[in-house]
């Protein structure tokens, strides 16, 4: 039993990393092509990308993996939600509310909480994210509001709420800058590898991904989630699963993961709350989740890939004056490529099934 489980983890990891390796290659080729078309010095830019992302142990740990941490956590949030047919586009807002709650605890509670400050801050972040997602879940079930729309609206509300906090109740003492005071040491995540910027949040993200992988595969809740995502009607009729309760729980867990991402980013990287805390992690997370095939273990690989791309892009901008935002194009092209590949693979398998006389392929498409 135990070896079997370990084997399946290995195969899940391999199943996720092999396509990821192919996608890595595609990403590099796509970027090289774009640079070439733009008439830029591709070799110089790619060199900078390499040095800034994985070219040295320091770049890998202090830059790539630090950047990957919030992407893995928000990527997990999106992957779990999408697996259950919950279209949570609101990871960005949940991340921001999580960061805000963690900041409030870290700044106001350190004197009382002492060594408990950090865990309470992280917990508060997860709770705030879950509550923020809970609004969308409530709107969906009680009022029939599409979560695609409500979560996007809530992203903007969260952004403006943080904007208010850093100019009001949580503003730093001089009241000059729109940001909070720096967090006390008690509220900061310790460094994971001495001499680097890599913090324990990365280990937390890995742990969350493994826990999600295990829960999806081996628990009743994970089973319900998968069934509801595949066919809510059958889940209700044949499986006697309470679909609304299941999707609400998924929404809450998804929000908690995104909120935790915000708390981790705050306590591990920025140490202060401000509006631009997230360069759109919650939106990039959708690309991360898709690239991972909505598989938790794959999210680790995809998160690290995007972390590397974005870290490398910053180096590219510094050293070769190639706009860093170009890497967003690469991310978009990757997502579109994956969609196209899935389509062609789907039609190929449907064709094979039809040739074999089966109808399963058609059912999958419908």
């Amino acid at each position, binding site marked *: 039993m135990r070896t079997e489980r370990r084997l399946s983890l290995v195969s899940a990891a391999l199943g996720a990393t092999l396509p990821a390796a192919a996608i890595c290659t595609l990403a590099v080729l796509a970027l090289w092509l774009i640079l070439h078309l733009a008439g830029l010095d591709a070799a110089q830019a790619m060199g900078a990308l390499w040095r800034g992302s994985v070219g040295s142990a320091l770049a890998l740990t202090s830059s790539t993996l630090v950047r990957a941490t919030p992407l893995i956590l928000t990527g997990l949030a999106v992957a779990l939600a999408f697996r259950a047919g919950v279209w949570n586009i609101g990871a960005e807002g949940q991340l921001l509310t999580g960061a805000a709650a963690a900041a409030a605890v870290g700044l106001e509670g350190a004197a009382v909480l002492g060594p408990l400050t950090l865990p309470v801050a992280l917990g508060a972040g997860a709770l705030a994210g879950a509550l923020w997602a809970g609004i969308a879940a409530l709107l969906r079930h009680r*009022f029939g509001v599409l979560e695609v729309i409500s979560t996007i609206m809530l992203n903007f509300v969260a952004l403006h709420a943080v904007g208010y906090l850093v100019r009001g109740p949580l503003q730093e003492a001089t009241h000059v800058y729109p940001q909070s005071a720096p967090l006390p040491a008690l509220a900061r995540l310790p460094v994971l590898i001495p001499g680097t910027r890599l913090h324990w949040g990365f280990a937390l993200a890995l742990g969350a991904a493994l826990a999600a992988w295990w829960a999806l595969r081996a628990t009743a809740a994970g089973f319900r989630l998968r069934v509801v995502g595949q066919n809510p009607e059958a889940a209700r009729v044949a499986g006697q699963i309470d679909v609304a309760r299941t999707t609400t729980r998924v929404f809450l867990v998804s929000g908690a993961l995104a909120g935790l991402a915000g708390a981790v980013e705050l306590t591990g990287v920025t140490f202060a709350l401000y509006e631009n805390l997230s360069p759109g992690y919650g939106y990039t997370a959708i690309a991360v989740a898709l690239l991972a095939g909505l598989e938790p273990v794959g999210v680790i690989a995809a998160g690290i890939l995007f972390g590397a791309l974005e870290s490398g892009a910053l180096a590219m901008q510094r050293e070769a004056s190639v706009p860093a935002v170009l890497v967003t194009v690469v991310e978009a092209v990757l997502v579109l490529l994956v969609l196209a590949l899935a389509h062609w693979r789907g039609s190929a398998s449907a064709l094979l099934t039809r040739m074999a006389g089966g109808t399963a392929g058609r059912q999958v498409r419908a």
Partner: protein
Amino acid sequence: MAAGAELLEAAVRTATPLALAALGETVVERAGVINIGLEGVVLAGAFGALVAAGSAGSSGVAVAFLGAALAGAALAAVFALFAVSLRADQIITGTAVNLLAFGLTGALYRGLYGATGAALSIPTTGTTRLPVLAAIPLVGPALFDQPAPTYLLYLLAPLTWWWLTRTHAGLALRAVGERPDAARVAGIHVQRVRWLALLFGGVLGGLAGGTLVLAQTGTFAEGMSAGRGFIAIAIVVLGRWHPLGVLAAAFVFGAASALQYVFQAMGWALPYQLFLALPYVLTLLALAGLAGRRVSAPAALGRG
């Protein structure tokens, strides 16, 4: 009185790009497709306007709007290629299109206009005062002393309503949105209808972006669509997928946004951010308030 007129004028000004984008999205959604990529379409339109205005010189406002429409349509075509032709998931495709627009416009902007991104200034089109109508007290100047896109909106909203409900082609489009399989059996080319709807939505979304640049700010900034495409999607729901309802919903949203200017002018001490968040909160409340009424979303919305 003066504050009321100002509020109304600001409401119409804020509503115009939102309503343009939402009107296009209404047609798209009536065809059974939800284009989350509308945010990127609006951004592409804004950038298209900048590029076209730069190459056309001061005389070519029409050219600049054309550039906006083309850029919007081009991005909508990317969405249609994947979400319609390849039957990819619409939400994920839309997200990818948004990323694509954000990355492309950002990189091209820096590439074409310098790494510093020094603020470019484009002459804005002035307002056109409609005779007689603009003389109506209070509402006249607000409604009828506006730039050209606002008037386009006045024309297109009823026209779209008429087209959707009274023409054969409009009926076919709604059939595609409600019962695509039945429509297919009836000989309607479902994919072609959705492609055309998306291109129409792309043109209007692009014009919405063009309006931001050419009639309002007179410049381009990275990510300047600032959520307007997303808001337009919410407005479609608020307007219950009806062109005139969408127009009304956009004006309500515009008024909610305009409140912040009024309160600022009145010197209220309330935090500015509360007013920035107000339109989104109102939208959520309004969406929740629609609960229990007949749900009028196209039956096949969002399904490949």
